[in-house]
């Protein structure tokens, strides 16, 4: 749910993003655990290009949050594959994910560790393999084992293109937990039947009440399926903005 409505001038997104980053961190602080400055997905209102002002707003927010008490851990970002350390200002940009979206004018921020992000999976299925989606996802969760800090929430993107499917999977994770459609339920049941359990130490709950699928149209010869995993510590914040 949106936490508050903010009215902003048409072009100045910087203070808004700054507020959003800080709000999210203050939520982390309320349980005294920094959410981390690691992977994040962010979503912006329609037709807002990923401008320097947005990047700057996020950077400023991160800078303030790392100086606060208790602090956010400073960005831990390197240049692949050389592993040279990147300074914070460039760091924020690499992890941001900007989507043109027509339904809602909001920005969301969710964080998780590399343990979850590293078990992401993409399969470019054949159109004839639509019946194998549950198998592919369940196998990916099996391979992930305890690494993504189960019980997890599963974001699944079906359709679009290879890159688009992964974006859909990330966006799907923003949908609040609740009712599931038949395919989501099928995947949920299969994943929990694996018995991987909390932290991979065995148990009934591997998926925490949520398989989230987001679909988009794709080429007739194509069926991209992407999985993005959220650990149990699903800390997120959304800000809805009234935009003239």
């Amino acid at each position, binding site marked *: 749910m949106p936490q508050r409505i903010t009215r902003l001038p048409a072009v100045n997104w910087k203070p808004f993003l700054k507020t959003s980053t800080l709000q999210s961190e203050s939520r982390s602080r309320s349980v005294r655990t920094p959410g981390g400055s690691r992977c994040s997905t962010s979503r912006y209102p329609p037709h807002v290009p990923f401008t320097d002002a947005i990047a700057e707003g996020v950077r400023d927010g991160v800078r303030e949050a790392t100086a606060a008490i*208790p602090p956010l851990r400073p960005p831990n970002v390197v240049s692949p594959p050389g592993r040279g350390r990147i300074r914070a200002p460039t760091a924020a940009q690499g992890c941001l994910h900007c989507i043109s979206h027509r339904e809602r004018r909001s920005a969301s921020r969710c964080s998780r560790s590399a343990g979850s992000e590293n078990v992401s999976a993409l399969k470019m299925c054949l159109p004839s393999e639509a019946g194998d989606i549950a198998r592919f996802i369940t196998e990916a969760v099996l391979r992930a084992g305890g690494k993504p800090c189960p019980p997890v929430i599963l974001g699944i993107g079906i359709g679009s293109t290879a890159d688009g499917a992964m974006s859909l999977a990330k966006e799907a994770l923003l949908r609040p937990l609740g009712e599931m459609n038949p395919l989501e339920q099928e995947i949920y049941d*299969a994943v929990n039947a694996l*018995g991987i359990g909390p932290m991979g130490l065995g148990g009934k709950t591997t998926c925490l009440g949520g398989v989230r699928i987001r679909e988009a149209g794709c080429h007739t010869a194509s069926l991209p399926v992407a999985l993005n995993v959220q650990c149990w510590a699903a800390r997120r914040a959304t800000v809805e903005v009234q935009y003239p």
Partner: protein
Amino acid sequence: MIRLSTPLGDEVLSLKAGERVSLSGMIYTARDEAHLRMQEKGIPFDPQGAAVYHCGPVVKDNTIIAAGPTTSARMNELSGFLVDAGVRALIGKGGMGETVRKELRAEGVYLAFTGGCAALAASRMTLKGVFFEDLGMPEAVWAIECRDLPLTVAIDSEGNDLFFDVRRKAEKRFDKMF
């Protein structure tokens, strides 16, 4: 709950996978880059009976603010030299691979801490020092005094591995389902 304190000795050899332990004493954090640096430059602390924690903490004004575990599997092929040097316990989350299981045989244990519970861990820790600070906050080796850190023995010194058992059962269930 079995109480352990560092430096660890042969008492770790009698621990069994699945048992819960409570660890006190000095532990040292190390992630990917610290392992690589230690292999190159040597271990900066006394490794005899030491416990190494896969963790990149948040530190502010010489205080541990958060200290959750990172995914241990990334260190699967980087940990042998520590055990060879006398390290008796590796601590992390998510489990470790076959290589580590063999390296720990008759030598030490892998202990699991719950991922995401960084605040709980920090509440039982006091910062004592730091090595390789140039690697940055998460990758540096932090020397931390801990009190009653609640852990689960996930790999014991006889080769029993809780994560591996769960995985094997899950594979069987997967084969049955699909």
